[in-house]
């Protein structure tokens, strides 16, 4: 048998690495959870978890932090697949703030994100006393993530200190935490955007239809096409809506996530668009522009 039989391609190597990480966490933590954002990266991560424990079931729950401003199609997708796949899914949201009516239109994107995403996440983690939380972040997404560990240590306040991260060598991960401390685990750290799309294509992983181009009612806000997803959008804004062929490169809260004009209605066309129209994916997330190095700031505060 030639040496070539032992050749492993990029995706299979990444897959093996991710599965190894997911199994390590399941074996070494008392109470792990997988944060499920409904996005494409999350969908890949969940598939990897299913593979890791096959033919057994995934031995930890998924948790979705619902900001209550997600696209309707996201929520519908979440509920459909959780049921079909038999996931143990926790949906958590900041009840108090929701009842107070916190939202991006009334409180601004910064307050909304902080209260409905970051605070809600920390609340959810504390409520169930999770000592490890998987996230679907990738190192190639954004500059401050390029230095993130696979096991990212968080103190009792879920804070990230970029200067105080544990050395991480080989595939040996330090899972030791004191009570109250936790680890954020990023099993798909080494995947690129193209890897994710390629994997979704090869594995037939279902994704939210918003990723595919379709005629949708959108409003042009400073060059970002914002979808009119429900009647919470201020009327004077919604009135400016026009039908355009658009799709979303990332998914989040609908008022904070811009669509791009696109004809790409298949994965192949999405990849083609990605390879030719060169715009890195996070630019369509409005929150990143709030302040210089804003992602790093959010990470310090406990957001991913």
């Amino acid at each position, binding site marked *: 048998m030639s040496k070539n039989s032992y050749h492993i391609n990029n995706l299979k190597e990444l897959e093996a690495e991710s599965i190894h990480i997911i199994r390590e966490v399941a074996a*070494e933590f008392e109470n792990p959870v997988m944060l499920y954002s409904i996005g494409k990266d999350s969908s890949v991560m969940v598939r990897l978890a299913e593979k890791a424990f096959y033919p057994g079931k995934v031995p930890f729950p998924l948790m979705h932090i619902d900001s209550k401003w997600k696209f309707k199609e996201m929520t519908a997708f979440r509920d459909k697949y959780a049921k079909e796949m038999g996931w143990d899914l926790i949906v958590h949201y900041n009840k108090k703030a929701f009842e107070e009516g916190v939202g991006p239109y009334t409180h601004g994107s910064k307050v909304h994100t902080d209260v409905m995403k970051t605070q809600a996440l920390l609340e959810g983690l504390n409520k169930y006393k999770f000592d490890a939380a998987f996230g679907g972040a990738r190192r190639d997404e954004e*500059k401050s993530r390029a230095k993130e560990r696979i096991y990212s240590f968080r103190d009792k306040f879920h804070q990230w200190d970029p200067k105080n991260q544990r050395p991480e*060598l080989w595939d040996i991960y330090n899972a*030791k935490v004191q009570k109250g401390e936790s680890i954020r685990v990023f099993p798909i750290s080494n995947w690129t955007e193209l890897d994710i799309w390629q994997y979704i294509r090869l594995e037939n992983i279902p994704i939210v239809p918003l990723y595919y181009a379709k005629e949708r009612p959108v409003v042009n806000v400073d060059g970002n096409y914002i979808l009119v997803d429900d009647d919470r959008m201020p009327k004077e804004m919604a009135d400016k809506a026009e039908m355009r062929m658009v799709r979303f490169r990332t998914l989040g809260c609908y008022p904070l996530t811009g669509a791009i004009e696109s004809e790409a209605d298949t994965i192949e066309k999405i990849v083609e668009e990605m390879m030719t129209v060169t715009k890195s994916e996070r630019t369509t997330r409005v929150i990143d522009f709030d302040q210089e190095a804003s992602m790093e700031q959010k990470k310090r505060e406990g957001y991913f």
Partner: protein
Amino acid sequence: MEITEFLDQDQKKDLLRLLTAGSVDDGKSTLIGRLLFDSKKLYEDQLSALERDSKREGHAGEEIDYALLLDGLKAEREQGITIDVAYRYFSTAKRKFIIADTPGHEQYTRNMVTGASTANLAIILIDARKGVITQTKRHTFLVSLLGIKHVALAVNKMDLMDYSEAVYDKICDDYKEFITPLGIPDVRFFPMSALKGENVVDLSDKMPWYHGKSMLEYLETIHITSDRNFEDFRFPVQYVVRPSLDYRGFAGKVSSGIVKPGDDIMVLPSGKTSRVKEIVTYDGSPNMAFPPQSVTLTLEHEIDVSRGDMLVHPDNLPGISRHFESMLVWMDEKPMDLNTQFLIKHTSNNTKARIDSINHMVNINTLEHFDAKTFELNEIGHVTITTAKPLFFDAYKKNRQTGAFVLIDPRTHHTVAVGMIIDKTNARQAHRITQHELQKVAQGGLLIDPVQKEKRFNQKGHTLWITGLHGSGKNELAYTLYRELFNQGATPVLLDGKSVRAGLSRELDYSPSDRAEHLRRVAHMCRLLNDQGMLVICSFVSPDNAVREQVAEIIGPDKFHLFYLEANLDFCKSNDQYDIYKKADRGEIQHIPGYDMQYDIPQKTQLTLNALEKSHQAETIFQYLEKNIIYPVS
């Protein structure tokens, strides 16, 4: 090209992980920036953001500062240096790449070691104006320490030396002289100007005297698959998959070697054997698994396997020991405290570890050895380590996966050190290393089927262990048993305190700890003899219940038969052939079980024999042997 064609091609690419070492001054960030840029990875908006940043903080005048693309964190940007490992991703038509970008400053050895741990290849940058400097040597040493097999020496800034072949040759010669003793198998040289893009992606016309490949072409074509160890099958069990009561799958990543359904395997540390029934994956059952695949194995037999165990081929065992020597890199701000009992993580195994000795330290600038009493941040040295339970390991040089470990501080939980195990045959202190765990599995029993031995000797390779006070008549009974068995055609072996203490345990006294060590040796001897098919008769006071249990554990509970010779102290004193009690009465000796120290009366025995009924003792034992088919077996 059609997009489906593109995707199908993309899917076939493999992954190369590389490390870049050198300081910003050497043009490292410029080189990386150019590799990324020229491979079209730099997306439009990243570039426009860069132009914005460049105006404010740039250090490269009018030109685009590639370094800014790479320095992620704000604090670091303010200092103008990268202070951690950053991972970059790019892809060409032929391959995908992950670059671990690490800084070159001395205080950041920690980061470079981290980046090197997962890399297949290292690019070491040299400023052509400076040549081989201390920093180059340091980087090269760390690269070799972490077992990187391919080094590309990029002699950069050739534009500032008029693209001189002589300058380049001199640097290459200097470097070769330095690198030879380090034993890095594959070293290549590249004259280059990262700033001008000469020999980075395309071959330069400025250096017609250079006939090699460009850096990118080299990175795209270098063969790395055979760097993996396909010889020694090692499968650390990570997780036991149990979807139903009658299904047990052992999940893990193949560290090295190849496994196929039907392969004989041995479980470490139990030594139990079975065969691979199936390789299970979500995508079907492949006919083999190899590194670095993550799979699940099912076995033909129902045997006990749990996380931390290792599956191996029985004819190819790793080192199995609680003692080993290792190179250690100290990663923590706080110096090493030799009194700490560290937590050690090695493959999927967690246990405790102690540093027995610091044998020498290495000056990473000169590679000279020196002595030290402790380790400080970024120091590297050679140590001897003892762990609380045996590890299953290979030399790091042979096997990166099973030769690597980390030490964790039990209080702070920091990863304080990382280690690379040295081939144990080279261990200078080999005489101190107990190899009993190795013997435990490397039994001669493997050569000949135990059933065949049973037939030949007409006996089972078991141990009959007689315990009782001094003077209870143990030895007498043992001798009777030995003679009778021999006369009837068995092949017994007799071990008693006197004979073992005359040689094997000569330096040990009668204190509880030395008694324990003495009996540990005896137990391993029994194990070896049993494995060869011998029926062993042991006569030892063995007063401690815990030690007897340990002995049973070493020999194997199913092969260990405990006979208690019950006698009161008065009887023993009257039967005191060696005047032990008389001497004790006079205070000449101490530690006499049942007299001045505890003798634990065995709670669970196979037989309890009355010391007064001498005539029945041997007979009772013979009945027991026959009934349990220990002797005769046919």
